[in-house]
């Protein structure tokens, strides 16, 4: 912790809060905090308002789990999208990544994680029952989970469980670097992986 003690208490508190954010180390947190407390107060007010408004207006879509302002979200209601295909991802951020690749124009379903015995995440902790509730109407389920052990095991699990219900389950083709999540895949890799997806028995 650089020079924590020499900072006035409110600044130290701000450094502490900023340091909780992903990708912000102690040094960056301190730089941001010192910048903010020296900025014009109107500017800081704007930032605070933007933060609160964004947090207030954004929720998870009750149907698919994507980030949205309205219930249900645009992905779930847009009828130019293919309503017979659903892409299953781990997190709401993955929806944004797949969407950016431009290679997919169907529905989404966010699981909210992956099965992880070492972190105490069971199938019941994921939105699998919700997915089963949406199954009628889908011809194809594309599993777009990370390619680490837990992502792959979760895909195996879903393929078994959903396959029994007579729907085609496919999985992204290789091309995603093994052991990585979707967040590391660039748009081109992702769209290739989507094109080359293969069926799971």
């Amino acid at each position, binding site marked *: 912790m650089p020079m924590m003690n020499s900072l006035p208490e409110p600044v130290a508190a701000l450094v502490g809060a900023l340091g909780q954010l992903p990708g912000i180390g102690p040094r960056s947190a301190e730089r941001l905090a010192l910048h903010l407390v020296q900025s014009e107060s109107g500017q800081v007010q704007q930032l605070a308002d933007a933060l609160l408004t964004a947090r207030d207006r954004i929720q998870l879509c009750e149907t698919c789990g994507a980030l949205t302002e309205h219930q249900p979200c645009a992905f779930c209601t847009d009828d130019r999208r293919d309503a017979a295909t659903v892409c299953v991802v781990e997190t709401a951020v993955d929806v944004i990544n797949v969407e950016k690749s431009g290679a997919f124009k169907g529905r989404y379903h966010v699981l909210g994680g992956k099965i992880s*015995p070492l972190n105490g995440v069971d199938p019941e902790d994921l939105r699998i029952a919700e997915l089963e509730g949406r199954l009628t109407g889908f011809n194809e389920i594309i599993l777009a989970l990370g390619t680490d052990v837990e992502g792959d095991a979760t895909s195996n699990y879903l393929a078994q469980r959903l396959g029994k219900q007579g729907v085609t389950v496919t999985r992204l083709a290789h091309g995603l670097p093994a052991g990585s999540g979707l967040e590391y895949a660039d748009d081109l890799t992702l769209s290739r992986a989507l094109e080359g997806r293969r069926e799971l028995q």
Partner: protein
Amino acid sequence: MHLGHLRLRDFRNFRRLDADFGPGFHVLLGRNAQGKTNLLEAVHLLATLRSFRGVGSAAMVRHGQPGWFVGGRVVATASHAIKLYWSKNERRLTLDDQPIRKLTDYLGTLRTVAFCTEDLQLIKGAGRGRRRFLDFLLTQTLPTYLPLLQNYTRAVRSRNALLKKRPIDEATLESFTHEMVKLGNEIMTRRRTLLPELGPRITAAHARIAPDGEELSVEYQPRVKEDFAAELHRMRDRERALGSTLLGPHRDELSLQLNHKPAADFASEGQKRTLAISLKLAQAEHLAATHGAPPILLIDDVMGELDAPRRQAFLPLLNQCTQGRGQVFMTCTEQNWPEELGEELQKWEVTDGELKR
């Protein structure tokens, strides 16, 4: 490949060290407990990110200090700067001042093979050490092997956690078993393809240093005989009773038989030492052959343990490694290094955490 510069800060008994090394043969001379082994440990740490003494990072902090720094400049086809820092609250590894996110991006920047007294555990100790020996070589020669091994280990640990829960979630267990079998088969394939190359190197090295009439056989013994999934299924009940994964490459063995008997149980101390050195020689030769350039050799106290004929057997490798742009670091307690090593030695004096020409 050689280490052109080494910088230490608060590493073991080195408060500060900045030293330039050329390619060739470096001998580190000094009385006991002066820091000779510590220096080799630092070089090996740069290459492997582990201590060859098998201890954690905290043990390497100079007593009373918050953390250590080990940095180096590696000169190969290009020159690279490595910086490694450890303290209780912070770890940093950079290559040319870029933080390293994945180990696979880093390993291979510097390649070393250490010969040290701890090597005896390769022969005496449990199978784990010999699996590590194989894994180290595969990691250093196949970029995909480390992630494979890490994923397999995670699959085994996940599976163990599932086997301990009651009631057992069969569908989830099945999903992880599938992954573990897939990854495990791949590991066994890699180990199996390594052996036809590595085995003969070990027996040849051994034949060079051991007295006549000692017959060594080296064999990879996977615990899985034919079909991982099917054999695992047969262990179903026992696995559930014990709550852990009982079959797979995490239980493989590299069997070393001397005159048809397990070396761990029947070989003499001297024979074991010879065997350990043979394994390491083979490792160095394998890396040299695979990469077209020898690794940096770190030889700690080993020459002192060998008689003249066995030292002779070391020479071809030492020569190979010091010729061209290679590099060897060897520690010696007295000024009686083997005559046969020639005049081109670069001598260093290690005294109480300081290094002098």
